[in-house]
Structures are given as C-alpha cells and as structure tokens.
C-alpha cells in the first residue's frame, strides 16, 4: 500500500510541501511489513495445492510381486514399480562368467559398486541378491532414457544394455562403461527373494532401511 516516500515532482496539483505528511515512519513501515506478510501467507495455500493429493497416500506399501517361473535363461522381463521400468533377468552361466572377467573392471566406471546406487545386499560382483537373478531399474543415469537389452547371442555371450539416446553402455549387471556418457551404474531396487520363482520388488530383506529416494541418481 504505502510505498517509499515519493515527493511529487513538479507538483501540478500545487499541493504545498508542508501539506505532505511524513510517510517513512514506524506506523507506515509496520503496516507495509504486515501487508507483505499477509501476501506471503496468501501464497501458501496456492503453492501448497501444487503438492496435490500426495498426503492421501498414507502408509501405502508399493511392492510388486514378480513371478519369474516363465523367464528363460538369458532373457529379461520388464515390470513397473513406482512407474519405473524394472528389468528382471535370469542369467546364464556365460553371463555370470562375463561379470568376473578381470579385464572388464578397467573399462567400468564403478566396478565395485561403491556409489550408492543399490541396497547393501546388492553390493557384490553380480549386483543382486542371488547371482542367477538380476534386477535393475531401467533408467539410464545419463538423461533418463530406457536402455535396450542386448540379449546374449552367439556373437556376444555376455549380453549388455545400450541406451538408444546417447550411446551409454552398461554390462549385464548394470555397471556403466567408461567411454560412454552415463556417469553411474543403473540403480538396483530393493528386492526380497520370496521363493525360487517369486521375488518382491520394493522391500529388501538384506537392507530393510534402504530408501530408493536416497540413491545417487535415478
């Protein structure tokens, strides 16, 4: 409302100078300050409404149960968890062997999984709870495209992931290759093995406190 003192220049109104009340004083400042505070308070409900309906999702467990009985060795299936594509792969002995080739480590950015991109129980050479089943969130750590799965073939017995957007490459355990743009390994979601052919994505038995929101990059 009241603003800084503004002496009317070349007062065409011809109002005498002493007719002007002193404006910059405590009362005006307090009023102005309270007005601004009120405007800020008014902004709160509008900005708060941008949070949408998320507060109604109280205590919901967002776990997905996956049945991998029909998953052939060397193949992967894709499920969605929290709206993200999750790759579930059954690894062949050749694929597993390819992860342990010593020369490979030199070509990977983070061969030991030191970056926080997986729960505790997936910090190992195969980046999963059990070596035979691999679970990865299929979002490239470069700019978020979904890498495509190059299934093991007679030419390449190990298989790999290649991102169609900017050529990022990952090995079958989701570890990023050095000479490509993706900076981190593919994230591993929390996984619990329920039985031979069933696993639960969203909850980790080996790392119950794991929160996917805390990882380096999704």
């Amino acid at each position: 409302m009241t603003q800084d003192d503004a002496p009317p220049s070349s007062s065409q109104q011809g109002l005498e100078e002493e007719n002007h009340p002193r404006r910059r004083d405590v009362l005006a400042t307090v009023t102005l300050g309270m007005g601004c505070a009120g405007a800020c308070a008014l902004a709160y409900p509008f900005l708060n409404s941008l949070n949408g309906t998320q507060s109604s999702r109280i205590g919901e467990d967002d776990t997905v149960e996956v049945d991998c009985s029909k998953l052939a060795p060397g193949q992967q299936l894709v499920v969605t968890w929290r709206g993200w594509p999750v790759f579930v792969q059954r690894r062949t002995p050749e694929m597993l062997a390819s992860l342990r080739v010593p020369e490979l480590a030199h070509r990977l950015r983070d061969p030991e999984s030191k970056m926080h991109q997986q729960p505790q129980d997936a910090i190992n050479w195969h980046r999963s709870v059990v070596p035979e089943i691999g679970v990865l969130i299929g979002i490239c750590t470069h700019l978020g495209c979904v890498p495509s799965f190059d299934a093991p073939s007679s030419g390449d017995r190990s298989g790999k992931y290649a991102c169609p957007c900017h050529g990022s490459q990952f090995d079958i355990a989701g570890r990023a290759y050095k000479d490509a743009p993706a900076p981190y390994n593919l994230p591993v979601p929390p996984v619990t093995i329920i039985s031979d052919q069933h696993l639960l994505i969203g909850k980790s038995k080996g790392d119950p406190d794991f929160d996917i929101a805390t990882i380096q990059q999704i």
Partner: protein
Amino acid sequence: MTDKSQDLSRWVEKRLPIVSSFRREYVDFAMPKNLNYLWNFGAFATVSLGMLLLSGIFLALNYTPTVSDAFSSIETIDRQVASGWLVRSIHMGGVSMLFAALYVHVARGLYYGSYKAPRELIWLTGLGLLLMVMITAFAGYILPWGQMSYWGATVVVNALNTVPLIGKALTSWLMGGEGLGNVALHRIYVLHFLTAFSIIGVVALHIATLHVAGSNNPTGIDPEYSDETVPFHPYYTSKDGLGLCLFLIVYAVVVFFAPDFLTLAENYVQANPLVTPQDITPEWYFAPFYAILRAVPSKLGGLILATGSIGVLFAVPWLDKSPVRSARYRPLLRPALLLLFFSFVALGFAGMHPPAGGWLWLSRVAVCYWYLYFLVLLPFQSRRETSPSPTVQHEGSE
C-alpha cells in the same frame, strides 16, 4: 553505487518510461479530494478479479474437463488436494465478492452521473467488463458438472437457440453440433479461461480512459483548482487500503464461515441428464436477470427484456440529457433512482423464489419500473428539474 543505479534507471527510463508513467498515473495523479467510500468499489472489484485469476489457475491444475471426471475432480480438490478446499473457496467466494463490488460500482456511477461527458467511454468499457464477467461466471459455473451446472447450461443453451438468425449458429459453434457433453464442456472450459484473461485487457482500457478524464466526484463538478485535488498516493492509496481491509474481512467471512451460504447445495449432486432438480434457480448474482426472464410469458420476449435490461444501460449517457451529473442535486431523479436500485434488489429476491403469486407480480412490477426509469424518467425528467444548488457544469474543465 547510487550513481550506478541512477544511471541504470535513467537508461531504462529513456527506453521505456515505465517508472515515470507509473508515478504520473498512480502516485502523483490528481484526484478530487471529496471522494466518498463508494469510490473504493472499483479497487474492490480489481482485487476480487486478481484473487479469482490466481485461484483459477491453481484450480485448473487439478481440474479435469470431461463429463465423466469433472465432478469427481472438483470433489478431489475439495477433499484430498492439499489446501484445495481453500483455493476453491477463494474462487467461489471471489465470484460473489466481484459481482457485489461491480453492482455497487455501477450503481455509484448511475447515482453520481459518472457516465456523462467526458466519461462515456469509461461507462461503456465498464459495462463491457460487466458482460464479460457474466459470461465468465456462467461458463465457470458449468465446469463442476453438478446438477445446477448442467441444467443451468441446458436452459441457457435453449434460450440462445431462440435468438433469431444467429442463435442456431452460436449454439452449434459452442457445442460442436452435439448435445451438452464432452465437446461442449471442453469448449466452455476454454471459454472460461479466454474471457477471464481478456478481462485484464479491458480493465486496462477502462482505467486508461478513466485517467484521461479523471475521476468524477460526489458533487459531479470537476475540480477546477489545484486545492480541490490531492495526489493519488498517499491519499487514495490509504483510503482504498482501509476500504480494502474491510472488504477483505467480508470476503474472509464468506470464505471461512459461510462457504455454502451464497451457493446452491444442489450443485454438489453430479449432473444427471435424466432428472431436473426441483426449484432450479441461478446463483444470486444472476437472479435479477433470471427474474426478468421468467416475468415475461414469452420465450423470446423474456430473453429480449433480460438482455435489454443491461443493454439499456449502454444508452444511458445519451438518454440522460441533464447538464447536472450528481443525483445529489437532482431532487426529482434522486428518489426515482433509489427506487430503481430497490427494484433491482427486489428482482434479485424474486429470481430466487418460484415464479408464482407475489414474487411473480413483484418481478413484473420491478421490470416495468426498470424500463420506465431508463426510457421515460431519465430522458424527460431533466427538463422539469431545476437545481437547488448553484451548480453549473464546468464544461471543458481540466
């Protein structure tokens, strides 16, 4: 430091004199010093409009303009969206506050003769704004897709259909040749936004024309000497500020303590094309015109008289030939004008009651008086009037 900022402001000033024009129009602008609190209502309307636009944007982010989801998206806003109930109440309350401010603002213009030369364009742009606000409000009322939304829209679309020559084309353009459904709802949603934001532009025109002639005042005599005026700031910023605080108190009471006092509960029932609700009535701000519509036992006649009741306002600057602006100095017109305001209120009440018995006759009498005032009393009374005060029009005063 200060030198540099002065250099910068000089640099900007030379290219875009925005600071100096703001100062000229909103700080130093000469205002008559005798304005009463009725001159606050333009500011009230502006603030209500601002609140409506702001809350409208945030509502639109959560609203779904489809027949199947519109109603439940509104319920979600009211129940689950964080602070959604408050944003929606600010929007719903804002409409009532805007209309209330506008009706008083127009009445003040009529009473003090603010439509007379040289202010005809202020009056015309203002009435244009009133029409735009009405269209926006009506379109907005359809969006929740409740029973009143649906049947109000049905009634108006059918009324539009009876307009000779263009009626059929208009409804077809609005509804895409289909019934009241998804296509129509989507178009009405766009229309609501389009008219709402166009209003800002016309408000700018309204204020620009006002700043050419300057404000009228209760005497209707333009100030001639500089000791009759004060600069806008701080005099009218503080006076508008005080009025605004009181206006906001009423607004807050509506939003927080009477959110369903001014609205119709029936609109919390989802639209059902198979059942028309009992006692269908519009929101209070349309009630006077709805009363006129029903007072006439003819479809087209009612429509003509209802739209004509606003249309006649556009002609007021030329119907009134009296040289005296303010009704304060027009002893014959003054009671007639007060009776006009009373008949508008009476029409409003009649519009909210079933059209039978006393209410029907009251609305018929009131609408007759409405036209009598504008077409007979206003043009001819000025001839018989002699002013009791030594008032002469200061033609060509600055």
